[in-house]
């Protein structure tokens, strides 16, 4: 029993910090979301308002738009990263000179602060300064102006995210690929499987845990991207790149409408969890259905 106590003592500081700085804000936001509270309003006190914050949220066009944009952004970016990351990981499995050097270069974007990434891409796309708009115009006569065209701003944000985060997917899949046993591949070759069949029936099922964890980590991160986009476009033009994190931080926060902002934060948290859970249930259930065949 003595040693049990010691074990809890060793865990205590960690649990204490996480409770104070991780759990308390969550409980706090839960309480505040049921109140009308705006410190700059005529009546700056907290008044209980039941579910009215949540009721307004359902009809808030800006909020719904931000959610939809975030979802689109997440899907575009993460799907591209998984596909690209898989091919790059496969290429890293081969032997070639200077492999370690190239892997370091490929890992580089991961270490850069998101704010600096946003700054970099802004420097490349700002009209009059960046090479991208200049050469697109010189060579193809294509007008590239992310401060005016919503589609271009959105795609630039997606490409920036791909540049920044594909290395994480590559490294995750690379680690999984390198630890795979060789026998199933040899067996598949003996059985006369072609490359497509080997990929679909051998590589993919074995890689599934790694792909899933890369997918979750990336999807959750993409849903919460704020700083990079803030530096790149500031959320514009219009609401094209105004993703949910940015929306809470830049639109709701300065209005000091705390009750409403809390409700929005909670719904965002809830939707992230539900989305991940649905994805997990969907992907895992499909495998379980296929198993009996």
């Amino acid at each position: 029993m003595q040693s049990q106590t010691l074990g809890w003592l060793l865990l205590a500081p960690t649990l204490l910090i996480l409770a104070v700085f991780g759990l308390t804000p969550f409980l706090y936001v839960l309480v505040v979301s049921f109140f009308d509270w705006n410190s700059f309003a005529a009546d700056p006190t907290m008044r209980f308002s039941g579910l009215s914050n949540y009721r307004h949220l359902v009809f808030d066009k800006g909020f719904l738009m931000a959610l939809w944009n975030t979802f689109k952004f997440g899907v575009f970016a993460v799907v591209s990263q998984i596909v690209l990351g898989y091919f790059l990981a496969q290429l890293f499995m081969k032997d070639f000179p200077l492999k370690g050097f190239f892997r370091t270069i490929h890992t580089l974007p991961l270490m850069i602060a998101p704010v600096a990434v946003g700054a970099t891409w802004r420097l490349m796309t700002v009209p009059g300064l960046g090479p991208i708009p200049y050469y697109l115009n010189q060579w193809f006569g294509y007008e590239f102006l992310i401060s005016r065209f919503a589609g271009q701003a959105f795609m630039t944000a997606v490409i920036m995210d791909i540049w920044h985060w594909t290395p994480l997917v590559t490294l995750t899949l690379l680690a999984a690929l390198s630890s795979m046993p060789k026998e199933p591949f040899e067996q598949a070759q003996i059985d006369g499987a072609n490359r497509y069949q080997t990929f679909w029936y051998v590589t993919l099922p074995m890689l599934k845990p790694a792909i899933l964890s890369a997918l979750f980590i990336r999807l959750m991160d993409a849903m919460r991207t704020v700083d990079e986009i803030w530096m790149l476009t500031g959320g514009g033009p219009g609401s094209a790149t105004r993703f949910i994190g940015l929306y809470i931080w830049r639109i709701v926060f300065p209005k000091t409408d705390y009750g409403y902002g809390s409700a929005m934060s909670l719904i965002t948290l809830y939707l992230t969890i539900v989305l991940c859970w649905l994805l997990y249930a969907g992907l895992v259930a499909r495998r379980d259905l296929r198993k009996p065949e």
Partner: protein
Amino acid sequence: MTRNRPGLSLLFWLVASLVTLFPIYWMFVVSARSRVELFSAPSFLIKSFFSENYLNTIHDPTYQKYMLNSIVIATSNALLVTVLALLACYALSRYKLSGKENIFFWTITNRMAPPAAFLLPLFLLYTQVFVVGDWKMFDTRIGLILLYCVFNLPFAIWTLRGVIDAIPRELDEAAFVDGASTWQVLIHVILPLARPGLAVTAILCWVFAWNEYLFAATLTSVNARTITTGLAEFVTVTGTNWGQMAATAMLTLIPAVAFLALVQKHIVAGLTFGAVKG
């Protein structure tokens, strides 16, 4: 499988590396140019190095303070997180604690929450609740150091758990038989064996803390601002000093890149998030 053609791979990775490096190279180009040079037709060559952009940032007392804050916060956080995670992982690995797998999982979930959802409550807590007399947690270094634990501790516990589990129990049992205390076992048995894992964890935590922007921008105003918030301050409504912004961004990059060079061999293992284990 396919034939191995090293030449082709080499060519591919050369091109891929150019794509990866180009944005960073461009940032360097911008940081090395004067305002006048910048707004002529973009060229990719650096004719002369315009050091004023760097010197302006380095000699600006405000940015010196930001830099110092970032260093203090990232270093304290990385050390604190690594020590706490080591203790926690040792407890999780060696003791029979009821519900410890649930605790482990709960710890991890702390990293998953979108930070934007916690900005508002944290702001309120820091300005109105975590207040002792005249002292507020808002705009203090300690506030950020402790807060960064929320996303760094789960990461550290996640990566260190495997490291501690891999150290054979017989080693600490032998030390206990020789009359060592738990503390001595931790210092003399676990610590030396876990050192590579601890180093990678500490360095990655340092980089995460160094790179963080959103909380730093929201929960500080003057005294505890970090270099990443300073970087964002260059973008203003009235215009942006692109050259100096690029120079400052290059400065924030240096420690992260230096650390990457140090840990790049171990980073693959560190980034698997237990995916390979199962």
